[in-house]
């Protein structure tokens, strides 16, 4: 897993998001054991406390569960992770349209650009 973190935003929610993307995309399967807090911290180059908080946050949302002494696992229900992915896609799309509007491109014209690019 490649971690790309943006220093302009709090890191903890970004770690949550990336784990959700991994789950929704099938990189992490239900009941699969995740990397340890320290492994994620080293891989992402962040503070272990931040990763710990992210995992706890995901546990509260029912996306992960922890087993004392064995670590963190992906929850059986991945619908929450998928919802997070959907929200990220929505935000990115909205941001794209906003940027295009700032360049003076009308939404109809944006559609044409998108169509051209996807072909």
């Amino acid at each position, binding site marked *: 897993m490649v971690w790309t*973190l943006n*220093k*302009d*935003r*709090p*890191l*903890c929610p970004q770690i949550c998001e990336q784990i959700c993307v991994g789950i929704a995309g099938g990189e992490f399967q239900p009941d699969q054991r995740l990397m340890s807090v*320290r492994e994620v*911290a*080293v891989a*992402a*180059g*962040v*503070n*272990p*406390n*931040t990763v710990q908080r992210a995992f706890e946050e995901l546990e509260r949302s029912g996306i992960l569960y922890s087993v004392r002494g064995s670590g963190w696992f992906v929850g059986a229900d991945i619908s929450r992770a998928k919802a997070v992915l959907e929200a990220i896609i929505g935000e990115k799309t909205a941001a794209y349209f906003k940027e295009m509007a700032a360049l003076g491109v009308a939404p109809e014209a944006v559609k044409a650009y998108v169509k051209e690019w996807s072909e």
Partner: protein
Amino acid sequence: MSEILRCENLTKKYGAHTVALDGLNLTLDSGKIVGLLGPNGSGKTTLIKIINGLLTPSGGRVVIDGYAPGVESKKLVAYLPDNSYLNSWMTIQQIVDYFADFYEDFRPDLALSMLERLDIRPQRRLKTLSKGNKEKVCLILVMARNAKLYVLDEPIAGVDPAARDYVISTIINNYNPDSTVLISTHLISDIEEILDRVLFLKNGRLVLDQSVDEIRQEHGKSVDELFREVFRW
């Protein structure tokens, strides 16, 4: 979470006119990685030297896990100074033995295995190593202690980007969740991802003391950007 370090109205004057620390109040809890940030001459190294008993304050006091700086506090604090105090003619093995004699909490096996991973043979003398490798050896010796408080003065000054990554992963890997790491630097963007909290020091006063994710949330910018704003002249 318990308190590991407390500064009360800490003041340090050099001569009649230079005030390096100006009534500093500060509390650090255990289990945190804290950045001590400030431009040159803001008092970072003065604070660190007082914590380590190398300077005595002109006023106020420092308490480290209940002790004033001294023999007892030095058992708890692992200190990486901004320039090396090790004898350069010594071999790495001799220095490791020296640390093992000096500090009860030093783990020689851990230090030697970390050195082995860097291909630094214990038979080599310190003076034969490159500047970057010397700095890594010093960091390894400090992080191989099982201390309550690690105080690292500019651990990434003068190392290349790959070495910087090594320094950061060494800190993350060896830091135990009950201990606290205080890192002073002016290279903020290089280390801000591993910090829980930052202290901005300006003219011997604390101008900001906040969690890094709060800073990003509140200001919508990185700690580095905020630093440049606060210290604009």
